């Protein structure tokens, strides 16, 4: 099932025009029922008009022709405001297009607007936004997950067909899981980061959201691949995916620990039985010694890089500025009032771990642990084709439940961060619903460049489940 193909074939048959389809999604976005958007792209209808003409002229070209897409507000879209959900960039107008934006525009995508997030993508609940929290579309009292909460909501609530978010420690997968949609965290380097506002450069990856796995494949095809503007991007290898079922899938032992809510464990068991019954996979448990250190390692590296990446918001060239009696007090005022609490907490923490004298003890040690995590993953891939585990240890939690307790909040990422540390790809997919109708999903983790294996497998699972 592909919504993209359905929409485009409707254009081809002359049943619809892009501006009509856009209007359906845009009007829902404009309602902004769950506070998923920070900025709407009012000018998108001009773009749709051009596409309407092309439909009339029967010149329908582009893999995303007339497809409404939302973009997380930490990815630059030229001439649109890009806030990063921060006061410090409240009025910042993007002077250029991110590489992913260039690529989707070239394929005819219609950009609906910029979606809500935790400030600078730092958070797991979308509560740390200068523009207010976003709400879970299945239960408004609960969080949509973060940091790409707005992106996940926009897809779940039909405000866009697809969305682009970013995943530094789970920021695509967690909200995808909480909102019941697909979310891909690509292999590090598979998608250009040029134009993505950096949180932690060595962990950040742009990733797409969709309701159907086939659509995820279509947009991944468009955005992936080497970009001369990003030195860390790589040429995506030309791989043919040939799957021999049943696949060997390892399930992380900690998926069944007491840190994980019972309902999630039950459904995971059910899912495993389903895979085995359908002869899709043979499943065995695996262990990861480094698992318990991943959160600590992640926060040291992510915050260290963030403390440096966010130094540019100093009130000199652009963004929010609060004057002071001298240069130092201007810096202090600007950054004290421009950043939110969580961002400041992470900047301070990151500054601390990079201090001379502490560098070896924290940052360097974390880098060594990071290598160890990757090695452990690769060792497991000698035995398994894919790994399986929950995305979150809990169901979507209540708003304000964890916001005052950062450590508790950080533990939401326990199943997601190690993937970013290793640079591996992972995909969050919806599976079922809880008793109170909250989405439950899991994630597959693959070897480098296993994205197309995910797509094939999940297309099969999607059809089996329907």
């Amino acid at each position: 099932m592909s919504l993209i193909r359905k929409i485009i074939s409707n254009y081809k048959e002359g049943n619809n025009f892009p501006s009509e389809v856009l209007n359906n999604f845009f009007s829902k976005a404009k309602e902004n029922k769950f506070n998923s958007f920070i900025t709407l792209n009012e000018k998108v209808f001009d773009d749709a008009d051009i596409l309407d003409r092309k439909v009339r002229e029967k010149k329908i070209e582009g893999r995303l022709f007339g497809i409404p897409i939302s973009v997380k507000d930490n990815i630059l879209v030229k001439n649109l405001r890009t806030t990063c959900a921060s006061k410090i960039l409240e009025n910042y107008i993007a002077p250029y297009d991110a590489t992913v934006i260039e690529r989707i525009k070239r394929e005819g995508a219609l950009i609906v607007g910029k979606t809500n997030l935790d400030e600078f993508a730092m958070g797991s609940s979308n509560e740390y936004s200068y523009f207010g929290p976003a709400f879970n579309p299945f239960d408004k009292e609960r969080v949509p997950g973060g940091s790409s909460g707005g992106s996940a909501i926009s897809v779940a609530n039909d405000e866009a067909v697809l969305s682009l978010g970013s995943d530094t420690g789970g920021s695509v997968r967690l909200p995808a899981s909480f909102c019941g949609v697909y979310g891909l965290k690509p292999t590090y380097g598979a998608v250009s980061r040029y134009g993505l506002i950096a949180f932690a450069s060595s962990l950040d990856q742009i990733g797409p959201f969709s309701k159907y796995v086939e659509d995820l494949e279509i947009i991944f095809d468009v955005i992936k691949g080497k970009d001369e503007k990003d030195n860390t991007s790589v040429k995506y290898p030309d791989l043919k995916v040939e799957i021999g079922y049943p696949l060997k899938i390892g399930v992380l032992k900690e998926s069944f620990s007491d840190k994980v809510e019972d309902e999630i464990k039950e459904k995971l068991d059910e899912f495993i039985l389903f895979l085995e019954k359908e002869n899709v996979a043979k499943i065995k448990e695996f262990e990861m010694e480094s698992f318990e250190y991943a959160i600590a390692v992640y926060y040291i590296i992510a915050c260290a890089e963030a403390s440096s990446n966010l130094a540019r918001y100093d009130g000199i060239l652009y963004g929010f500025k609060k004057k002071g009696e001298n240069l130092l007090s201007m810096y202090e005022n600007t950054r004290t009032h421009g950043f939110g609490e969580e961002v400041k907490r992470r900047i301070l923490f990151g500054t601390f771990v990079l201090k001379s004298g502490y560098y070896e003890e924290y940052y360097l040690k974390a880098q060594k642990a990071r290598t160890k995590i990757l090695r452990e993953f690769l060792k497991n891939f000698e035995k398994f084709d894919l790994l399986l585990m929950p995305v979150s240890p809990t169901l979507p939690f209540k708003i304000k439940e964890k916001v005052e307790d950062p450590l508790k909040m950080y533990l939401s990422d326990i199943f997601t961060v190690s993937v970013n540390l290793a640079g591996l790809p992972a995909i969050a997919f919806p599976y079922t619903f809880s008793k109170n109708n909250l989405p439950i999903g899991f994630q597959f983790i693959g070897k480098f460049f296993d994205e197309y294996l995910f797509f094939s497998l999940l297309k099969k699972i999607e059809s089996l489940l329907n």
Partner: protein
Amino acid sequence: MDEFTIKIGVEIHVQLKTNSKMFCSCKVDMSSEPNENICPICTGQPGTLPLPNERAIKYAIIVSRALNSKIPDLLYFSRKNYFYPDLPKGYQITQYGISTGYGGQVPVIKGKEILYFPIERINLEEETAKSFYVNGKVFLDYNRCGIPLLEIVTPPVFDSPDILINFLKSLRRILIYLGVSDCNMERGEFRVDTNISVNFKEVFDHRVEIKNLNSLSAIKDSLEYEINRQKKAILNNVKLTRETRLWDDLKKETRVMRTKEFVEDYRYFPEPDLPPFEVNKHYLSEELPLLPDYYFKELINNGVDPKEAEIILSSPFLADFTLKILEKFPFQKFKGWILTEILQYIDDLESLRDLPFNHLDFISFLEKLEEGLIPRHIGQDIIRSSMTNRVNISELIKDKIEIKSVLEINEVVEEIIRENIDVVEKIRAGKVSAISYLVGQTMSKLKGRANPKEIKDIIEKKLNLK
């Protein structure tokens, strides 16, 4: 008094002469209007990423090779974090932990000798913006921001300002010969910070750094001032401290800028946006240009006085030109023509890259002088005209002394004989020396375009004197 020991070291920043900046494609051109050569990357806009300039990396490696520094196989960049308005990202991309070049030395010309002074390291980094202070306000020009910069650091091995000046002159010359920088000090392309400690018997840790040195004379004067200040302090038992002092070129004194009680912590860490890279093997094997010490040795071996050699060495072009002439003529035969005649028309010897004629033209000019075809004063006219109008001397020689054929000379000689019967009579009577009068008359009729010896021969033949 000789129990004082002086230790001087330097940190040199050299702007590399590349077309584009270190991490973006902006033009390197400080003659543009302020803030004309800027882009999202070099102004640190959110989402941008650095792209290393290959040529700058190549230049850094060439300099390291020329100075005999050790070059690691794998290089990477690091971030130096600090806040200042001239640094739009809040960090400078530089090298730390690993340098392009380690160790090595600079051959320094002192009198007839070549001495070798050690280098500690050579780092490649990016420039900051240029600050202007007008009426108490600070203005920033980001044209300079991101220009490739080479940092060359020496250990404290210089025991007098004079030898340091020699070192700096030699180093500049090498960089100019390598073609990596123009090293213009006034334009800030070659900037020097010094550090100095004067000790009396015991060794104290009171290294004083001196900044704001915009010329070689400022370097020399500031060091002499500082040596006196420190000696006086020691003799009067005043405690000296580690500090940074600023040179005031008008008042000719140094004053405290900051003490080292507060040491800035730059929180260096490897630049996550730029993966480590292998040194290109071609850069290691490509042939280097000939360097000043080679030319110096050759000139000295050819009997050139060391002082004159230093003048010739100022321009790599002139050094090469002179060596080519030396293959045909001893220095004594032409040094006046170069050092006095040609150089009087050159304002800036260092930027001398060509003459309106090549070495072959000049050799034939010297041959004609030698043969007497060109009288000295005509030669001077030719040089003046060539240098001021940028015309090849060969053209001017043709014009001024186009040699007349023997037939033409014969005709003129006959004419002169007819007109000067009285002189001929005298010659026939035995006053042979009067021939030179006839030669002179013939020469002036031929406007000097003949060989006087040849004329003399013809006259003698005509008068049957032979």
